[in-house]
């Protein structure tokens, strides 16, 4: 049989910060995500489950990642934070319409 089989692997990474994300440490998160992008990762799951606080600088990092990954054919999924107030901020800013949201990292991974 004449078969031409090719394998396409798209690297997906799950990033799960476990502390508050604010204007002080958002640059550190941005640098870590940039490093993953430059290393070839295209699909990202940002697991916010254990992020107790997220400010606009942290949100800017998420949007920047979304734009950069989509520019390179990838995408970003967000896992809802456990903190109710943080969930409401995601709804207030309509991030839940821009990002595909998931309840767990496992669910986000199956969604790509």
């Amino acid at each position, binding site marked *: 049989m004449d078969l031409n089989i090719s394998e396409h692997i798209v690297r997906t990474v799950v990033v799960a910060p476990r502390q*508050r994300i*604010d*204007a*002080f440490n958002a640059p550190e998160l941005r640098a870590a995500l940039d490093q993953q992008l430059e290393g070839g990762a295209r699909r990202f799951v940002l697991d916010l489950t254990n992020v107790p*606080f997220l*400010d*606009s*600088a942290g*949100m*800017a990092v998420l*949007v*920047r990642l*979304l*734009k950069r990954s989509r520019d390179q054919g990838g995408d970003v999924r967000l896992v809802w934070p456990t*903190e*109710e*107030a*943080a969930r*409401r*901020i995601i709804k*207030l*800013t*309509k*991030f839940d319409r*821009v990002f595909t949201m998931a309840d767990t990292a496992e669910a986000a991974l199956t969604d790509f």
Partner: protein
Amino acid sequence: MELHSDALRLDLPAANKYLNVLGACLNAFIERIEGIAEPRVTAYNIELAVNEIFANIVAHAYGDAPGGRVDVVVMLASDPRRLLIAIRDTGIAFDPTAVAEPDLEDVQINGYGLFLARSLMDDVAYARCADGNTWQLIKHL
């Protein structure tokens, strides 16, 4: 704002490194106010609003230069019960009218800070004074 006897005053270096200190103080202050509806959400929202103004001062009033200070006064007022937060700096003037509201239908990287502060508080007022800037935030409790 007239300084009430039980007002809390914080004198912080104008650096984002201290955002967690500011947040912890605000949360501790609010934690002991009785009868707040949804206390955890309310405290988070107030912390986030003040966090955004503080970070804005660090970036714009002081241009991320070291040496600046930010004075934060927090007090509970009555009739109606509300939390008053005054934030002062001695940096350059800021024009809040020049900041466009974010287009929520088209996600963007920047521009959510003041939007969040205004959305989460009942009032956010800015004034330029002779020696700096004053922000006054009000949240009815």
